[in-house]
């Protein structure tokens, strides 16, 4: 067994062990079942909930909001990153803003967004978008910074036009950072939308969890919570796997 398989196996073992430990702690009453459901029941509750129309509608609402926010953030963040890379002085000037951006809890802007966009999905999309945008922008800037100058010279030597230089040389060289940005953007858009729903809005999965908590419906609450957490972990793992596959191909090339 190689070291990396051993690591992966241990990781699964530890995760399973923790789940079993929680199960045992709940079943034996160390953790009161009123506070935490045993994982097996969470899972059963999740499956039950996912077969009801109402929950599926919430899932669709939340996922589509996240998708729009994520795509907009990636496209606009990338474009803004490219533009900003070409304007070094402007970039230096707004650098402190970018560095402090994530220290401001953006949920405080929700009422403003509601006043601007009205009570629709738009304020939530805006929250997700605002949470995800700087991650993509910063990743794009870093990626473009790290393109080795020798590659640009090679492109000039081959007399590539600027479009072909961008497509064949610069984009592939910046890809690892761009991918990192895409991954973070998805995570942040998801966090932003769920938190927005949870605290402030009247729909979607986040709201359903808050509502279940307030009506002491622990089964629904834990079922939905497990679904949200699993969705986040699975999407993140899929992107990471794809990323490392791309990375390996780069090394082979």
């Amino acid at each position, binding site marked *: 067994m190689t070291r990396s398989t051993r*690591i992966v196996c241990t990781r699964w073992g530890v995760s399973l062990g923790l789940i079993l430990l929680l199960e045992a702690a709940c079943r034996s009453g160390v953790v009161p079942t009123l506070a935490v459901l045993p994982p097996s029941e969470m899972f059963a509750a999740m499956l039950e909930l996912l077969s009801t129309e109402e929950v599926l509608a919430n899932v669709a609402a939340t996922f589509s909001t996240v998708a729009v926010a994520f795509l907009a953030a990636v496209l606009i963040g990338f474009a803004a990153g490219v533009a900003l890379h070409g304007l070094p002085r402007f970039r230096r000037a*707004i650098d402190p803003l970018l560095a402090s951006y994530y*220290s*401001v809890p953006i*949920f405080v802007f929700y009422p403003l967004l509601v*006043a601007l966009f009205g009570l629709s999905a738009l304020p939530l999309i805006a929250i997700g978008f605002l949470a995800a945008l700087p991650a993509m922008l910063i990743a794009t800037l870093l990626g473009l910074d790290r393109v080795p100058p020798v590659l640009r010279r090679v492109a000039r030597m081959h007399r590539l036009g600027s479009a072909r230089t961008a497509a064949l040389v610069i984009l592939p060289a910046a890809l690892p950072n761009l991918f990192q940005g895409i991954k973070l953007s998805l995570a942040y858009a998801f966090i932003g939308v769920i938190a927005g729903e949870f605290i402030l809005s009247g729909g979607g999965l*986040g709201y359903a969890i808050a509502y279940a908590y307030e009506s002491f419906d622990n089964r629904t609450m834990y079922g939905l919570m497990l679904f949200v*957490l699993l969705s986040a972990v699975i999407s993140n793992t899929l992107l990471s796997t794809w990323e490392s596959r791309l990375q390996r191909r780069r090394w082979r090339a």
Partner: protein
Amino acid sequence: MTRREGLLDGTLILLAMLAVWQALYQYAGSAALTPPWATARYAVELLGTPTFWGHATQTLSAFAWSVAISAVLGIALGLWFGAFRFAGDVAEPMLASLYTIPKVTLYPVMLLLFGLGPSAKIAFGVIHGMIPVVLFTLGAVKNIRPVLLRAARSLRLSPMQTARFVLVPAVLPEIASGLRVGFSLCLLGVLIGEMFASQRGIGFLIINGINSHNVKLTTAVTLIVIVFAVGANSALLALDRRLHHRG
């Protein structure tokens, strides 16, 4: 770029932001936000009232506890995972995926476990702020240059001396970066906690302002939070850069 140019650019950016704020006010009206000057004046007025400080003390003490707990636990766990390579390799992706989950969904669990008091807020701040501290510390210990450890060995430093003169100075800058990120996330966690199911604190003031359409209050408190967050972050960033460029 000269220092003068930097100052000029900074001022221009600040003015541009104030202009955008004013324009938003013209567009959305007083149902959405109050204009910059009036907000600043009301914020200063708020800072002179004992009610505000009652809420602020609640938030600041929960925040201070969660930063302290995140720092101690985060550094300890990070050093441990960093020192035992195998444990670190097992844990790192798990921590990274914990970092990307919407932790707000876990807040009800904190409330059920810790009750409706400050401890739920603190715990919630800790689960936000601790992970970056662990990840940065782990990375710092893992990537320490082997030549430094060899130098310590060849100088026959005792383990205590190695820690004091080699390990700590080598990992300190990274830990400072982790603490800066953790600091912001603790604040986020505590504020979110107060915005949901709480009767006290700055987050409660904001949510209360939203629910009672007190735009003046919400905008002013938001301004205070932003100034505090950006100010603290800039100070920590300056410290961070000094540590990274030292020596």
